[in-house]
């Protein structure tokens, strides 16, 4: 497929995408401490892919980020979330009771890291699902699965 937009848009997108993605990671990791979290960060991360689709066209992005890869990401994200939730059952805690793991292992501030891990899981899933929705919406036939 030929270049879809002008050189200005492509150049700006090329510069902006890494910054958007770093910001997304910041929002995800910040979720345990203040405003932010997996949902918001995941959406921001997906926005970087949307910008790439606008600038470089769908096939170009799809070559790098395939639908299959997105599906694996979306499953992986929820598995991280639910897995950590279930992990809390092992040291006799309730579902998602991070404190139980922290108390059992004796590592200080572990529950904060676990919240981060859960947020990362949510972020991965939201990013993958948002991007696959954009794929489906931008798709005009052709490769569909």
């Amino acid at each position, binding site marked *: 497929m030929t270049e879809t937009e002008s050189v200005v848009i492509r150049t700006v997108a090329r510069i902006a995408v890494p910054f958007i993605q770093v910001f997304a990671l910041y929002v995800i990791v910040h979720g345990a401490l203040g405003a932010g979290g997996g949902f918001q960060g995941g959406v921001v991360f997906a926005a970087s892919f949307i910008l790439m689709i606008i600038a470089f066209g769908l096939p170009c992005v799809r070559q790098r980020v395939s639908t299959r890869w997105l599906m694996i990401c979306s*499953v992986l994200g929820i598995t991280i979330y639910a897995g950590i939730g279930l992990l809390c059952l092992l040291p006799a805690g309730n*579902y998602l009771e991070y404190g139980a793991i922290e108390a059992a292992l004796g590592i200080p501030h572990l529950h904060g890291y676990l919240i981060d891990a859960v947020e990362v899981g949510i972020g991965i899933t939201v990013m993958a699902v948002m991007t696959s929705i954009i794929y489906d919406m931008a798709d005009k036939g052709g490769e569909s699965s």
Partner: protein
Amino acid sequence: MTVIDHLPVLLIAIPILASLLILLVGWHDRRFCYPISLITVLSQFGAAIIIFLQVMREGTVAYHLGSWAPPFGIELLIDSFNGFILMVILLLSAATVIYARRSVESEIEPEKTVPFYVLFQLLVTGLVGMTITGDIFNLYVFLEISSIAAYALIASAQKPRAYVASFNYLILGSIAGGFALIGIGNLYVATGTLNMLDLARLLPASYELATVHAAFLFLVIGFSIKAAFFPLHLWLPDAYAESPSAVTVLISTVMSKVSVYALLRIVFSIFTTAYIFTSFPVNDLILFIATVAIIAGAILAIAQDNLKRLLAYSSVSQIGYIMFALGVSNQVALEGGILHILGHALMKGCLFMVAGLIIYRMGTASLKELGGLSKAMPISCAAFALAGASMIGIPPTIGFMSKYYLVLGALEADHWIYAGALLIGSLLAVGYIWRFIEIAYFKDNDHDEGHRQVRAREGPVSMLLPMVVLALLCLFLGIFVEGVMEAVTPAATLLLGGA
């Protein structure tokens, strides 16, 4: 803490993981999807039985997610009412998943079976979540999970009419979801809590607020749409008639029952009888509409030419019976209503399974072409007759028992006319059930459509077995109704604010 203590959350968390596993494994080989789905639903059913026995033995089971105490954290709460509902819906889900395999093979394109089972699993999980949660916003989240899965499942028949049915349901379902959310928001504004028990405790102080009245109306109308309560049933006939047979069985039994459950839970556990009798007296209106629903649904059912549409309109009528109990709101009537939730799930599940099997074998559910069917499919027709007898309310089936309690309850509350209308509804049920029986057993189509008859034979065992079990349950639970009432009576007492 043992595994038993964690069953409420495992009942939701494990099936969600299982649905993801189905998705992953389905890429590798789609033959693995069905066994995973089967094992998951069967173990959910097993867990539901364990939880229910625990509730019967020790009283209400509560589970605090993340160990956050109730008004702040999300609570899973299983009492004698939703423990019973949980067991009913998982029994029906288990029967449906056994039934589904052959039906899916014939109705769903092979490459769509993976998403089908993923959505199927998510639908069941969403409905289980709606049933066991003790947090009203959580109820809304699970409502949306189940609804979105249901829209896609209805459309999975991949016929133009199924797309239209799914889209109609999507629009009405979204309105219903929106109404429920507005209602929940109003309750939150009025009380500052989302926990159901806490709401019930705090609400009496605000009973006269317009916000609370609006919340009540939004919630009742929203869930009435989901439950297809009479004037709001317009999405139902198409959705039931056009979706794949296994989906029809699931949404007609499990999904409609959970919506009714949510409605009863909101009206009785959150607003309590004090509100609906004195502050905002709507139960006479609900009783009237329920009676209209019973009669109108039955009359519309008689007018149908397609077996699945006939049964769909019959559902409109039967939901009316359950809402009738809500309208009467006394102990005996509520016992009848809760018993009818079980009874209707059993008989409608069986009837739709028969309809699905007929489509599986004959490729049509048009009543005109089913003449003399009983010779070709004797077991299915017998199951239909038994479940149909229960639908009409012929003793000693469970359908008779629930209607008996409903009539007793209506008489106790001096609603003589309504009790009479209920009996007329039963007579009309004879009309639509008899239509199929007459065509299947007494009409002979040999001279005009004989070729069709020769090809049809009895269905595979995996489809017959759940159908026959449900039909026999209609009979045996009716005969041994005392055992069932031991579970139903505490549930009705609980709803009316007793211990």
